[in-house]
């Protein structure tokens, strides 16, 4: 499952951080997930708690912050809120938006002790 490997990478990122910053426990993780990132929030929450078991982030809360998709038309450079990668430009009707935002999956911040 896609979310599982992403959750594992998130765990590694947090453990790396724990090693550097010397915290003992993670209480909460804020995760930014783009609307075009193909990540299902409920699957992510499930995988998150599964992969964090036995780490300093065991039992941590996950808050997912949804980031809207934004695209720029390659013809007329109009920018709009893209719902799907195959949306056409609402101004000129061309296909093939360049995606500016909305494919990201980023750990924004963590609350630690």
């Amino acid at each position, binding site marked *: 499952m*896609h979310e599982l490997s992403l959750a594992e*990478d998130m765990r*590694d*990122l947090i453990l790396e951080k724990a090693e550097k910053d010397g915290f003992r426990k993670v209480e909460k993780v804020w995760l930014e997930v783009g609307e075009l990132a193909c990540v299902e929030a409920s699957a992510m929450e499930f995988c998150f708690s599964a992969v964090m078991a036995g780490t300093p982030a065991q039992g941590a809360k996950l808050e997912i912050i949804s980031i809207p998709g934004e695209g720029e038309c390659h013809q007329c450079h109009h920018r709009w809120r893209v719902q799907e990668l195959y949306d056409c430009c609402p101004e000129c009707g061309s296909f093939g938006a360049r995606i500016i935002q909305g494919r990201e*999956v*980023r*750990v924004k911040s*963590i609350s630690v*002790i």
Partner: protein
Amino acid sequence: MCTTCGCSGAASHHHSEHDLSEDGLSENDLREDSLHTSGSHTHDHQNSPDSHIHHHNDQARILEVEQSILSKNDRFAADNRQRLKAHNVASFNLVSSPGSGKTSLLVRTIEQLRDKAGIAVIEGDQQTELDATRIRETGAPAIQINTGKGCHLDAHQIGHALDHWDLDSVDLIFIENVGNLVCPAAFDLGETARVAVLSVTEGEDKPLKYPDMFYGSDLMLINKIDLLPYVDFDVAKSIEYARRINPDIEVIQLSAKTGEGMTEWTRWCLQHLEKDTSIARDNRAESCNTNA
């Protein structure tokens, strides 16, 4: 020492602990990776003078991380890209649904190109060595990566696979990704170009159903065209759909069975050896590095 991740184990560690590990990355990797990232360490002590006593109290504090989950993969991908470029190797990441004909295509590609270029193959499958064995029967070197429950290849695995070859004797590397149209799209491997293989038995609406795969690919190969008389696949429509998502995507139609279209494909591969591929690579980084 491992040039990808800086780990200092004996060469054999790659077989036992990395490449063939069934659960993806091993414990070692966590340690290895903290080595490479120590240079880019950023933390927030300067903003909060008190935080030096944070080890001794139970006050929760917030650390700004602002890091893509894929940033670790992207670092490995950048290393691979640099290494391949230094040895003038062009590499292709083949992504598709299971059974689109990738291994058959590669066997035929090797037969047609082996007098013109040094070819090596990385095979990704969840289980078995079968596809690598099919490639080795052609005489070309192949490394099988079994991802176990993992459904895609990542750049760290590719870096270790590259350790097995003298890259000066290799010109083209083909990477057959795990058959899956969803998550390989998110993992940059450091390849020169990404190739989405769509077979005519699948239905022409695949690009709309799995747009990420086509957004990030440079070429769409339509395979099994020998079967067109027997199926309802609308070639023009599949191309139109793919270009809605990616107006620049190139398209080649072929049959790995009859060989039709193979020359156009092998020429496309070879042209990446001649031109400076750094431009294509930069575009790839832009479309995949969601942290940009």
